């Protein structure tokens, strides 16, 4: 990455700080609301780390809600960053890990892992990653050689791979009879509820290096967007950059898929929204996607927890229900 002008640096910092503030506000909201009512005073006491007479509240805030909010933030950041990267490499506004079948591939891997009774980490994580790599290779082989860079071939192959993956997922689900069926179905709809702080820590350790790598490549993404010839004259090895970006993104996405299932639409809505607001410089968009995507997912998860009277709706349902209309509205407005 090259940050030559101080102007860009200042813009990155301003926008990041702004979004970081939003993220912190949203995280506070996420920790303070839930299915049990906790008074504001008690909550503040707990958040400020004062010893409380009632340890139960502490447990709820710190061991149930806090990991969940962190997880939602990480997952939202990953998925929206994944969408941003795919849209840049393929130069196609519709590209997203979910649409290209990368999520589907890791879901197949994860379901096979769940069905063979592996533990979530490292067992299911590994099968999920294997699944996503397999779909990625399938994609690359299908659109091998020069056509890798032709956006339509790759996108079209992706759509087909995704259709194939959904069929296999449905097949696996229909062959399952016992109690694991419930697990798989809830997990497929996107579920953030079952992670403790250690698992979130492991996930963060896997994801943070990926974020940094992608930020380092953000200037290359800008140049790739200008076209192949332009990129070559600027001295960018398109094949290598594309391969690195695809593999890193698939790794991130499969890590989140194995923890939280399939969450569509985040990778489409957030990058587009940010691009409409902040322009199309990826040096700004990468950190903005991480912070904005995280905030969006935390809000969706909060809605999923608070809205229903009994129980909760799967967060994947909320991301799509909020995301799709928002996306259409923005599209209409930007056209005008």
């Amino acid at each position, binding site marked *: 990455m090259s940050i030559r002008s101080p102007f860009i640096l200042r813009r990155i910092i301003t926008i990041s700080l702004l979004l970081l503030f939003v993220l912190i506000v949203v995280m506070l909201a996420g920790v303070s609301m839930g299915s*049990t009512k906790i008074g504001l005073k008690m909550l503040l006491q707990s958040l400020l780390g004062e010893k409380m007479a009632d340890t139960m509240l502490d447990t709820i805030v710190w061991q*149930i*809600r806090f990991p969940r909010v962190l997880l939602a933030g990480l997952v939202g950041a990953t998925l929206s960053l994944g969408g941003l990267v795919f849209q840049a490499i393929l130069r196609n506004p519709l590209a997203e890990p979910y649409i290209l079948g990368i999520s589907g591939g890791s879901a197949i891997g994860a379901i096979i892992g769940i069905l063979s009774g592996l533990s979530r980490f490292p067992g299911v994580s590994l099968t999920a990653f294997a699944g996503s790599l397999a779909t990625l290779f399938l994609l690359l082989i299908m659109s091998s050689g020069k056509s890798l860079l032709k956006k339509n071939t790759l996108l079209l192959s992706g759509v087909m791979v995704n259709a194939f993956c959904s069929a296999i997922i449905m097949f696996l689900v229909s062959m399952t009879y016992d109690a694991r069926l419930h697990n798989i179905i809830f997990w497929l709809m996107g579920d953030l509820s079952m992670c403790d702080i250690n698992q979130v820590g492991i996930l963060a350790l896997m994801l943070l290096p990926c974020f940094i790598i992608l930020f380092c490549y953000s200037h290359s993404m800008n140049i790739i967007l200008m076209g192949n010839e332009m990129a070559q004259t600027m001295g960018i090895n398109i094949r290598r950059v594309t391969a690195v970006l695809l593999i890193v993104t698939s790794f991130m996405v499969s890590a989140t898929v194995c923890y939280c299932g399939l969450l569509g639409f985040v990778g489409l809505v957030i990058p587009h929204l940010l691009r409409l607001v902040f322009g199309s410089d990826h040096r700004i968009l990468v950190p903005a996607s991480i912070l904005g995507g995280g905030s969006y997912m935390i809000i969706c998860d909060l809605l999923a927890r608070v809205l229903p009277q009994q129980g909760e709706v799967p967060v994947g349902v909320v991301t799509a229900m909020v995301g799709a209309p928002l996306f259409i509205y923005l599209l209409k407005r930007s056209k005008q």
Partner: protein
Amino acid sequence: MKKRCLILVVPVLICFFITQAQSNERCVTDQAGRIVSLPDKPERIVSLAPNITEIIFALARGHLLKGVTTFSDFPVEAKKIYKVGSYVKLDLERIVSLNPDLCIAVKDGNPKDVVDRLESLGIPVYAVDPKSLDGLMQTIFEVGELLNAGDRAETLIHNMRLRIQRIKFLVAKAESTPRVFWQIGISPIISAGSNTFINELITLAGGKNIACGTSRYPRFSREQVLSLAPDVFIITSMEKGVVFDELKADWGLWPEMPAVRNNRIFLVDSNLFDRPSPRILDGLELLVELIHPELFKEKH
């Protein structure tokens, strides 16, 4: 000399601490083979499945229940207790907010993740796994022990044994073994095969479960059901009324099936059969009436 003293003193001390610890805590092994340490007298219990709620009420320990699952609707008192989500989608936060000193879970129904997380938050979870009538009685016995209702549990089990004996005695008089097809839910057609509660109930009630095979919950096509030619057709469903009438009319299109010809398609309340609780014997008695109505006619 000093060493010898130490050898004597240390075990005594250990024993002392163990007994101290045991005076308000005890370690037990649950039906999933996990070692659970729980209070001697649990007072804040959360039941993680409707059948467990029923068992606890049958043991007259309903007042200890602080939380139950959404579909815990029997007995009526259970409806008023705080709900902690359905048994496949438990709300961890609600469970923790009740500050329970014991949760009772079902091994194959509650998601293992939730159980693990409850344990990691320091809430003891005792898992039960009733797979047969004997298993159910064992479960009632164990839950009775946990809740200091051992006597009550023994009476309950004794009564259950008596009722089963009575049914066996009655069924022994039957001259035929009707072929029974048991449909769970409406679409797709799923039945209960070998090693299931329902298979055991059908056999006890003097029927032959024609879905017995390799799979526990086999799936059938309409064609396969027709070719099996069941004499008695039983549908369990949570939906009642119109849906059942439609379903019955659907099957009614095939009068070749003995069950249709003799008008022996029945809808039964799934709660009586899907929940391994003392109420399952009501289900069993109902089943005998459906499979062998002639035994009851002779009586009257």
